[in-house]
């Protein structure tokens, strides 16, 4: 006998709805045995005392940004991957807005090769999104059929990660990609209506002197997509949902049987316009943080499943890029290393969500949206999981962050809950 035995650990598996204390034995990269108590000679295995700790399937991030290639000063791929593992993520979708952009099969393969050449272990599986349009510029389609031939563990799906403003192109994309049967992700955002806004419109933004973005900048684009899906029947994943009205529209669309799924980001669940009035450039996001009613609707949407998944939308920036006025800052924040702990502390610890609900939105559902088998804690399955200590506290700073990027409101703050270890054996069949 060999391997590792986790004694009396709280096992949470959203694929089965499991949340119970178990003995878990892993060997050879697989779960060998899971039972309330296992009779294994502790001299034969490494034993980890799991008391008070959580064992959960690896987290799956739908979409994030990589600095490499093109902006390695923000964050290299190695740093992104180290941060992901340190945060419990075993699969990370990478948006195509790198330099050069991921808009051809060679660019996607190069990114995956870059990751494979790194010797750090364990590694998260990188899933590049192939751009829908050349350069993700929203003008001319990429060679979508060829991109869709890439095997499913080397591509997340098709997405620009940018709003598509040309509605004719949007229609044609929905028609053209339908038979490709690949995940298609769209960000509902009307740039014209959003204008120069940097905060969600409302009395808080008005009081705080931040130009507002109407809710309609999101919902006008969302309804366009939903009405096109209603006619063309192409499944669509809706990215970066940030308003209460959008949650209501998606609920209706799902009730009508439209093939749509939706995600918000972890930052939109944790913060609102009230927080943006600190003018911390790390709270400058696109779409902007919602008003408190939007935030409440998103939190409820995750609980009910109307919002299927929580994306991290990890966006590293160099210090000098973010140390500017709130409105001048490029939107986005880092999050792969921080999100699970912050969400657990805020929503699971007080009982707003169950642990299963959080993991459903961060592991099971995003894997399904990517048309991949979700990681599971089940006998004979490959080990893809992480151990989390909800009680550990740590300080987010240069010595603990795996990323050189510091653009997070949690920087130099204390965080409760820490991922202790992540396991991932992607080579196993």
């Amino acid at each position, binding site marked *: 006998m060999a391997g590792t035995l986790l004694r009396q650990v709280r096992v949470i598996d959203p694929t089965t709805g499991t949340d119970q204390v178990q003995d878990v034995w892993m060997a050879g990269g697989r779960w060998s045995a899971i039972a309330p108590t296992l009779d294994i000679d502790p001299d034969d295995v490494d034993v980890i005392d799991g008391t008070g700790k959580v064992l959960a399937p690896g987290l799956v991030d739908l979409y994030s940004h990589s600095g490499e290639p093109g902006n390695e000063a923000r964050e290299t791929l190695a740093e992104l991957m180290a941060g992901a593992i340190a945060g419990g993520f075993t699969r990370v979708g990478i948006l195509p807005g790198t330099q050069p952009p991921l808009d051809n099969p060679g660019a996607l393969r190069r990114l995956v090769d870059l990751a494979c050449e790194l010797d750090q272990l364990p590694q998260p599986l990188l899933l590049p999104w192939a751009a829908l349009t050349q350069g993700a510029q929203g003008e001319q389609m990429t060679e979508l059929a060829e991109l869709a031939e890439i095997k499913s563990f080397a591509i997340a799906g098709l997405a620009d990660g940018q709003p598509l403003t040309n509605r004719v192109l949007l229609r044609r994309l929905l028609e053209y990609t339908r038979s490709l049967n690949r995940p298609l992700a769209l960000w509902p955002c009307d740039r014209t209506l959003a204008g120069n806004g940097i905060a969600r419109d*409302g*009395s*808080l933004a*008005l*009081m*705080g*002197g*931040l*130009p507002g973005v109407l809710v309609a900048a999101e919902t006008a684009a969302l309804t366009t997509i939903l009405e096109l899906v209603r006619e063309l029947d192409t499944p669509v994943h809706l990215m970066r949902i940030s308003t209460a009205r959008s949650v209501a529209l998606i609920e209706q669309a799902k009730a009508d049987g439209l093939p749509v799924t939706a995600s918000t980001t972890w930052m939109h669940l944790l913060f609102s316009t009230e927080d943006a009035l*600190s*003018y*911390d*450039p790390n709270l400058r996001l696109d779409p902007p943080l919602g008003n408190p009613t939007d935030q409440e609707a998103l939190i409820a949407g995750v609980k009910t499943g109307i919002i299927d998944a929580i994306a991290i939308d990890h966006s590293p920036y160099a*210090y*000098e890029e973010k*140390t*500017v*006025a*709130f*409105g*001048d800052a490029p939107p986005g924040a880092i999050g792969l290393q921080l999100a699970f702990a912050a969400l657990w502390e805020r929503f699971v610890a007080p009982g707003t969500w169950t642990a299963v609900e959080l993991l459903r939105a961060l592991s099971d559902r995003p894997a399904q949206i990517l048309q991949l088998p979700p990681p599971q804690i089940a006998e004979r399955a490959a080990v893809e999981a992480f151990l989390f200590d909800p009680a550990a506290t740590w300080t987010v700073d240069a010595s603990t962050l795996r990323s050189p990027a510091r653009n997070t409101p949690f920087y130099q703050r204390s965080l409760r809950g820490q991922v202790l270890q992540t396991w991932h054996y992607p080579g196993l069949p």
Partner: protein
Amino acid sequence: MAETRWNHRHILSLSRFTPTDYATVINTAVSFGEVLSRRNKKVPTLQGKVVTNLFFEPSTRTRSSFELAAKRLSADVLNFAPGSSSLTKGETILDTAKTYLAMGADIMIIRHAATGVPHAIAAELDRLNTGVGVLNAGDGQHEHPSQALLDLLTLCTVLNPEKPSIDLLKGKKIAIVGDIIHSRVARSNLWSLAACGAAVHVAGPPTLLPADFVKGFQRSPIDPPGLPRQLVQHTSLDAALDGADFVMTLRLQRERMTQHLLPSLREYHRQFGLSHQRVQICAPDVKILHPAPVNRGVEITSELMDDPERSLIGQQVTSGVATRMALLYLIGTGGQSAADIVQ
């Protein structure tokens, strides 16, 4: 002058100012106003202190007013102007602030075209435990506290030149009209005037005064449960002017025409421009304020602006120096040695 209690290291916004804070500023400014009426207008209050004007956005009037105020207090003044800066060469806003910190700055007066920059610099200075005070001299379309406080001094002085006091504002109707949404002056004034008990009525075209604009100003986190703030929003000018004791109008930037906010300057002037005829429905002795510079013939007619019976624009400028002396003094000394200063 009695010892004052002052617990604001920075003046970034008036949203958390109490009536006591306003009274302190007014009383201190009145004392400095007396200093300014003497032959020797200089006091040694801030001798040896370094006051820095960090004006990332070009400004002449406000900067001059702060510079004069600092010099009257015997401070050494450093001016930073964007034209000669290295901001375009990759320097961050914090680098600029830290450069002046290294020169020994005690107070930083900051203006920036973007909202929140003085807050960000103040947060960094606090994180470094520098003890340096930051005075917001206008950030984006957010706030301009010193302008609102000099407006307050102007109003209190008009109401009782012998003994100006914020209590005189109770029950007065003050109209603020024009391009409210883009105005940092309006936002700071909404906080200060309502906190002092005035009934504040705002009016402007719907594109420049969105519905529910005043909602965010109805309550400050520091308000005691019983303090009612009287803020009313109108879409027509006459409703705001009706019976008003004071009218404050705001500069209309001409580029609003190209942003689909207004059809024409002519229509704006017809709807919201102030003239002798329009202000007839105000109180008989109504006075007009404007933060300057004025677009003559747009938000106000030249005749009304130049009418010494009505216009307080000149007095606002005079109040500016005394008010800014008070603010620099309060930040620079914490209000500790008031008695020595004005003697």
